[in-house]
């Protein structure tokens, strides 16, 4: 049963992601992105990470996608097929790589991977949100802070690149 759900979510994610880049109308692309986000959230639920699933829906499907749609509609993008000439090459290379990876995995077979550090029991004892918060603010404090620095850089960078008067012109 779990496997069934996994393959359903995985297949839809893969197809929707391809559609995001393949569709010519930007609105359709954004909508397939939405489908993709929802199925990723589904994948999180099937992995019993409910908190992540909720965050995925609220942040990605809710906030970020609406922002995308605003930008697309404000800019009034026309259909653009400049980037669709490389499709045959991309298709051949992508398919070859995918087949190669699958063949390699199937032919050689693989051992069961070791269990990750946080097992289901710890998560269930603490509850999803608490376990995540605990890991983020203790073990993974440093990467967490670096990630916040990255967001700071992205924000200031966007402001600098977009602000009106440049350099000497104001002086």
């Amino acid at each position, binding site marked *: 049963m779990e496997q069934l759900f996994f393959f359903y979510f995985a297949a839809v994610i893969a197809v929707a992601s391809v559609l995001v880049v393949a569709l010519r109308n930007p609105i359709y692309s954004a909508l397939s992105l939405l489908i993709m986000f929802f199925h990723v959230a589904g994948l999180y639920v099937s992995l019993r990470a409910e908190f992540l699933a909720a965050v995925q829906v609220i942040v990605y499907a809710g906030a970020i996608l609406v922002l995308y749609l605003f930008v697309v509609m404000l800019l009034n993008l026309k259909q653009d097929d400049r980037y669709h000439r490389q499709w045959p090459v991309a298709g051949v290379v992508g398919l070859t790589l995918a087949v190669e990876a699958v063949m*390699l995995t199937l032919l050689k077979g693989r051992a069961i991977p070791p269990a990750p550090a946080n097992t289901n029991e710890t998560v269930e004892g603490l509850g999803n949100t608490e376990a995540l918060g605990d890991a983020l603010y*203790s073990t*993974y*404090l440093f*990467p967490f802070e670096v990630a916040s620095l*990255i967001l700071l850089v992205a924000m200031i*960078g966007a402001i*600098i690149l977009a602000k009106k008067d*440049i350099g000497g012109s104001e002086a």
Partner: protein
Amino acid sequence: MTSYGADLLVILPELIVVGAACLLLVLEPLTPPSRKELLAWLSLGALALCIGLTGGQISVLNLRVSAFSDLVVVDGYARFWKLLLYGVTGLTILMSLPYLKAERLQLGEYYGFILLALSGMMVMVSGADLLTIYLGTELMSLSLYVMAGLKRSSPRSLEASAKYFVLGAFSSGLLLYGISLLYGVAGGTKLGAVAAAIGSRGFDDPLLLIATILLAAGFGFKLAVVPFHMWTPDVYQGAPTSVTAFMAVASKAASFAAFLRVFVEGLGGLKADWSNLFLLLCLVTLILGNLVAIVQTNIKRMLAYSSIAHAGYALIGLVAAGRGMGESGGASGLASVMLYLALYAFMTLGAFAVIGMFRKGGLEGEDIEDFAGLAKRQPLAAFLMLVFMVSLAGIPPTAGFIGKFYVFMAAVEAGLAWLAVVALIFAAISAYYYMRVVMVMYMREPDPSAGEVPQLVASPALTVVLACAVAGVILFGLFPNPLVSLALQSVLPLK
């Protein structure tokens, strides 16, 4: 409640750099446009503090300290790269002072972003966990994307920024995919956990191979090795020259540092596999980088291809380390990579410093033809450029020769004499395009119809940068021993 006092002390240099960057960003709107230079001096002060902190530990070079539940590690290897990165950043800031003035880009944020990029590089160098290394890479790259686009009046600069951003995001995706597969195989993202999983479970897992290839591709993009080099010429040409210098030297050094740590500390057990992979990458990089550089007419583009080729030479050291027999073989290969990048920093910074301030009526003289007759007009400037070109070509008695010498020696020791010979042939080919610049400077007269002749605009800060670069190139060319022994001492153990 756990206290992080001791952990914070370990990352004190990072904290200083980030703190200074934030201070700069706050002070920027408060300083009048004519006094933005103060911000540069402030960032240089922060760097001096860091050099003092890290340099003070040189007597205990190989003391390994880890912090934040082993996600960060400060060892001799990290200290070596950090010292190099401080130096490169300091010289870049000095070089930017006159450059930004000439380009009328008086942006205080520029210095803030240099420091933020530096903090990302320091995280990469010190990361003992794939997650930390990845986040450091992102912090560095994101700052560089912005810096590449700072010259907003030029469409080239914006194109460079956009191209760098899109391709960089794509390569980050590959890197993350590799990391996630590795996490699936090893059950952890710490390099130690990955190494332990490989050691106990063997190398047969196909997912392990796929992960290795994806990691190599992700890092290959940051290192600009063929076939992941497509962005390099456009970005190097379009970005402001001081940023190009920073990308060509600091970002390459930091990426090499993280790359070596991941493959040696984490995937060291797979060295038989990855050394074959890198042998291939290194050969294509040498061939393509050197051959395409010949036909370039823009000097920034030529140096972009030359930096691709130099990444190829540095990769030889890693291949040799992977193939090395016994303990010593691996160590000398890795040390040669570290040495190569440290020496490469001086000559490339020097060359870009000259190009940035080589001006034709307010604009940059970017064409190789612009250098015609420079030896008659400004003999000193021409001589400096001659030194940097000779060093990049790897001709004694310059630092470039020492770097290549140790890399080739490592290859011969590892039983790859043929690779050393091939690389030597391509070094000879590279001499052609470096010497062409010299020839144009010394033997060609400038086109009389061209109007204003380009000049090197001197300034005190530029003099300091050029003096440091020339001193580095000549002194390390004649007396390489201190640097060689430092690299050998701080090298990572390859099992």
